[in-house]
């Protein structure tokens, strides 16, 4: 059996003790929780500074400037970021805070350039294309609704496009005058009929049922936004709100799942399930958990007694 170092054993016990210390906050705010909190902040800051120095400042700045002074003249260009970094520190001086505006402006400009290209190629183009799925292909692959493919099919595609339109229209707050409101329904009907006719004649689908289904789907997708110019706009926006609520609900559900997962991770650590049997045999995590729990409960009891 490979023996663990003493520091590793102590580290394992400390991690279990600190886990329970932090969890003690669920009972009540208390001094031992505060100790753990400050310890965490201190360790995280220390780790961050050391990492930043050894992985960022030293190899990318100090070493290169050093090379520059020792003969490699092209490396002296790194004096510019050093000067800019120093200029950033002027932010703390009320009198010379304006000096920091130069590096901040450069940072913002560079970051905007990097972000804009990424957002355009990754999100704008990619996601707009995916926002209107190929319904003929969907029909060929899945039909109206395919349970085995998580409900993929023409109905899902139609719901996606109509839901997206409804969500966007929900955020259209301008008042529409009564005259314009008369246009929506006739325009929607004409669009629906035209799109339906195009789909029936031109859709690359062999079956008539498929053509009708795709035509209906496409017609609905094309006609729905015209409801904005009608007295029925509120129906569309209500549907948009429902879609948004479902999406917020899904996000909330995922968040809850994430938090439970974190608790499970700690639970597995406390019970020694996440460690190899060799380590468990040496650390005895269950005993560590029990001892830590007893210490923390005793401390909580003493603190409570003192408070009262």
């Amino acid at each position, binding site marked *: 059996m490979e023996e663990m170092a003493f520091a590793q054993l102590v580290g394992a016990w400390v991690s279990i003790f600190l886990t329970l210390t932090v969890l003690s906050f*669920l*009972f009540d705010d208390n001094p031992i929780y505060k100790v753990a909190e400050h310890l965490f902040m201190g360790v995280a800051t220390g*780790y*961050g500074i050391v*990492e*930043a120095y050894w*992985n*960022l400042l030293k190899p*990318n700045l100090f070493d290169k400037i050093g090379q520059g002074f020792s003969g490699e003249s092209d490396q002296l260009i790194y004096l510019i970021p050093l000067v800019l970094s120093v200029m950033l520190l002027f932010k703390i001086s009320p009198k010379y805070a304006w000096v920091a505006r130069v590096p901040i402006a450069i940072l913002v400009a560079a970051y905007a350039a*990097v*972000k804009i*290209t*990424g*957002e355009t*190629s*990754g*999100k704008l*183009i*990619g*996601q707009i*294309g*995916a926002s209107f799925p190929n319904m003929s292909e969907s029909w060929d692959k899945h039909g109206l609704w395919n349970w085995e*493919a*998580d409900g993929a099919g023409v109905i899902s595609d139609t719901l996606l496009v109509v839901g997206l339109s409804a969500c966007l229209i929900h955020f259209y707050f301008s008042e529409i005058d009564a005259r314009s409101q008369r246009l929506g329904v006739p325009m929607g009907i004409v669009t629906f009929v035209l799109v339906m006719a195009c789909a029936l004649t031109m859709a690359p689908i062999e079956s008539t049922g498929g053509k009708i289904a795709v035509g209906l789907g496409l017609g609905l997708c094309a006609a729905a936004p015209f409801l904005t110019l009608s007295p029925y706009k509120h129906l569309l926006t209500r549907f948009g709100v429902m879609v948004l609520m479902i*999406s917020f609900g*899904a*996000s909330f559900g*995922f*968040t*809850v*799942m*994430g938090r*439970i*997962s*974190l*608790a*499970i*991770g*700690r*639970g*597995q650590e406390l*019970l020694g*399930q*996440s460690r*190899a049997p060799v380590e468990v045999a040496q650390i005895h995590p269950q005993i560590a958990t029990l001892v830590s729990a007893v210490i923390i409960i005793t401390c909580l009891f003493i603190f409570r007694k003192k408070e009262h």
Partner: protein
Amino acid sequence: MLEWLIKFQRMDRRWVFLGMAIAIFIPLVFPLQLPFRVDKEVRDVYRQVEKLPEGSAVLISADFDPASVPEIGPFFTTHLHHLFRRNLKPVLVTLWPTAIPLVLPEIKAIAKTYNKKYGEDFVFLGYKEGKELVIKNIGQNIFQQFPTDYDGTPLPDLPIMQGRRQAKDFPLIVSISAGFPGLNEYVLQIQGQYNLNMVGVCTAVGGPDYIPFYKSGQLKGLSMGMPGSAQYEKLVWKDKPAPGVKLLATAAMDVLNLGHVFIIVLIIMGNIAFFITRRIEEA
């Protein structure tokens, strides 16, 4: 009854914490082994690995911290087993400084069990600060961004890096991400630009943000949170895990189920109590 409902609404929140603690610890100690199915998103991740020819290199960006290990740590471990078992070559980088102590010992330990050699069968290029800029450079020139590996060996001296100068030289890119910088930035900065074959692994909280990337085909597969890791474990270890391998995410599925049931019950009871007491108070 009304009195009880009013009491329930004013219940001390610590009872909820206690209930959740019980819901977590009981199935951990006494596993129920409830069945679960594998989602298409995770099956696609598995398929992407399976269809790679032997000897291919896979670029893995392991961007996570200790807080996200319960969710995506099991995926990372299983993924390395999957790659080594299929004689594929992982090339690891990280954009999170906190990932180094999680990634390096893990890959070394797993590689040892498969008799894989550092520099030939796997490599860890280390951590680089710079967030999106590092990702952009990975797309353009890995050798420039990472002149040496984590141990300081120049990249041209590593056999595994021969002919693999940029992201598009890798037939598969795996972004294991717990947040920023991570999966989102990989998709935005290089996936679209170089049309990369890419799969994503994320925490449950980030899942809803990345589903559109999977649906649009920008990601070829997606594993979300602990259930994603459990499903991947199920696919990789079909019959039973190799000796010494613990299926932590699979073991946690019972707990996830019970934890969610507990929360759902609380939400339903809370709503019932709220509506009944409100109606009576109004009357």
